[in-house]
């Protein structure tokens, strides 16, 4: 898999870096880091804009960047199908949605390509990227993803579908029915649970009677894979295997990224009522971006000065996106009436 092997050099005593083992070049790892960083800075700015009363609402992906960027890296942009959920800022950014688009949606401005200002922010959608529109009712996307999987099987392409959701949402009937279809028909669907241990205020013990969401995979005749969601390379590795399996026609997988949301559920939430500050601080030390940066430094993928460049570039991009969106007009009010029905066929 690596150059070393094909060149028939003697076995090295020191193990290769994990990313090389996984078949990732330094440039790819750098790009993954960059997406995480950009997503984080964008997300932070959104919180600030909310505090400044510039925008009415924000729901954040902070803390989830590691599992998201790893997953995205293992997929074919614009080719595979994606059902993100509202925390997937980094996932959809990695798949091609631009910061400007995200900011337009945050403000609910005219021309927002995700929903034309109809949906609340973070309801990702991009037809040209096969990113299917996020809904607010949770879990509805899960059986829909199986439907896309059935269509792919029908058309015999090599595409796969990835559908994302929180662990709390797996309590909905939609989860069960969606996985049941995928299991029965061996559909090329990857069920990607981002388990951050809370559904708003409800801790995992009250959400389900098992320790892991992946413990349920067996009930649907598919493998269940648990990994450290704050480790971007573990996420890549898990997704890669699941994708390969699906492309080989061997059917679905249920992936569970163990992660944490170090911020409140949304700008409307106050998480101090339901969890300790110690718990939050503990997890902040395991921040996926911190961990990824450390990895990159250790393996000389890039250095601190490069990181500073990234920071600068991220700030510029975020500034630009914000300026672009802030100065954009609101949608003309009558647009509320458009797009209810398509044109009826002529006969």
């Amino acid at each position, binding site marked *: 898999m690596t150059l070393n092997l094909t060149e028939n050099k003697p076995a090295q005593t020191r193990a290769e870096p994990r990313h090389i083992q996984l078949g990732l070049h330094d440039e790819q790892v750098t790009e993954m880091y960059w997406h995480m960083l950009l997503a984080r800075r964008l997300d932070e700015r959104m919180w600030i804009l909310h505090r400044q009363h510039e925008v009415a609402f924000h729901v954040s992906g902070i803390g989830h960047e590691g599992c998201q960027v790893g997953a995205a890296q293992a997929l074919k942009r614009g080719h595979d*199908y994606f059902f993100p959920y509202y925390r997937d800022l980094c996932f959809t950014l990695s798949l091609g949605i631009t910061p400007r688009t995200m900011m337009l949606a945050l403000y609910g401005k005219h021309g927002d*390509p*995700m*929903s*034309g200002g*109809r*949906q609340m922010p973070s*309801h990702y*959608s*991009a*037809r040209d990227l096969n990113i*299917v*529109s996020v*809904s607010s*009712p949770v879990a*509805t996307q*899960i*059986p*829909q*993803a*199986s*439907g*896309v*999987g*059935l*269509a*792919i099987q*029908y*058309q015999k392409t090599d595409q796969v579908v990835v559908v994302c959701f929180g662990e709390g949402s797996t309590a909905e*009937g*939609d989860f069960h*029915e*969606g996985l*049941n*279809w995928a299991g*029965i028909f061996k559909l090329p669907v990857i069920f990607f649970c981002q388990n951050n241990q809370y559904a708003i205020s409800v801790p995992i013990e009250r959400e389900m009677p098992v320790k892991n969401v992946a413990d349920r995979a067996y009930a649907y005749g598919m493998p269940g894979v648990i990994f450290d969601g704050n480790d971007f390379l573990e996420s890549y590795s898990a997704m890669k295997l699941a994708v390969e399996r699906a492309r080989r026609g061997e059917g679905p997988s249920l992936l569970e990224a163990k992660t944490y949301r170090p911020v409140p559920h949304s700008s409307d939430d106050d998480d101090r009522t339901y969890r300790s500050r110690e718990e939050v601080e503990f997890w902040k030390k395991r921040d996926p971006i911190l961990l990824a940066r450390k990895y990159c430094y250790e393996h000389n993928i890039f250095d601190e000065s490069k990181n500073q460049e990234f920071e600068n570039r991220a700030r510029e991009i975020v500034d630009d996106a914000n300026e672009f969106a802030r100065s954009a007009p609101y949608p003309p009010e009558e647009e509320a009436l*458009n*797009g*209810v*029905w*398509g*044109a*009826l*066929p002529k*006969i």
Partner: protein
Amino acid sequence: MPELTNIEAVTRTLQQEMARNPNIFITGEDVGRRGGVFRATKGLIEEFGDKRVVDSPLSELSIVAVGLGAALYGLRPVVEIQFADFIAPAFNQLVQEAARFRYRTNGDWTCPLLIRTPYGGGIGGGLYHSQSIEATYAHVPGLYVVAPSTPYDIVGMLRYALRVNDPVLFLEHKKTYRLIKGEVPDDDYMIPFVKADVKRVGSDVTVVAYGLMLHETLTAAQELLHEDINVEVIDPRTLHPLDQDTILSSVKKTGKALIVHEDNLTLGLGAEIAALIASEAFEFLDAPVMRVAGPDVPAMPYARTMQDYFMPNAEKIAAAIRKLNAY
């Protein structure tokens, strides 16, 4: 021109359109080897194979959701819900998802999903095999609700439905499946949505009816001829959105309006039609707008005495028309 029953009209059109369009596939409970519990998909799995006629697990939520997903991808799924009563578990997927996809993406993602389902009573189905569900879904912008009631209309509208790029709830009155027969041309005619049909021209009273009630109304109209009452019968065919013009023109002509449906009275489809008339044809009205409908009870009882009492029929319709005519 062959004579077909309502159910034959469904089956034959599905067969023809599947032969024509490789993107059409069918799923639902027992639609495969069993050919559907009403046999609407009879013979299709033999002709098209089990990739195009797919027995689903017993799960309506995901039958609709899977259809929706396949439609997003670009296929043209036809899903069957075994009885209209059993669409309720799929309410969220149908109303919040399928019907809102176009709007919530400003037209980017569309959902050409066709849902067929037998509805209506009078067949001893009791509370859960007799329901009329049209009003619940006719309240939902972005979702077509159609209920063609003759073989001719079924063929023309089913063909059209398979070309419409929005979700369609295609209602088939199960009592008419084998009861109603009619000639159907061999050509590929289509009947557009949102186009009501004047099933009988008259001058005294306008009656709006669909499904089994259309046929009961036509019977009543025929009888009332002996009493010199000339009834105009409007079949909306598309129940949502309504062809307001055809209904309003008729009422403006007759000055009297009756709406008939099996569904219970309160907030049944008749409510919207009556409200429309009361708002837009007020100056033409010579009498109160009347409704003949199922009573406001949770659903149609099983015992035949109670079922008959529940069902509107030609006699009850005629009585209401007489009252309106005499007003």
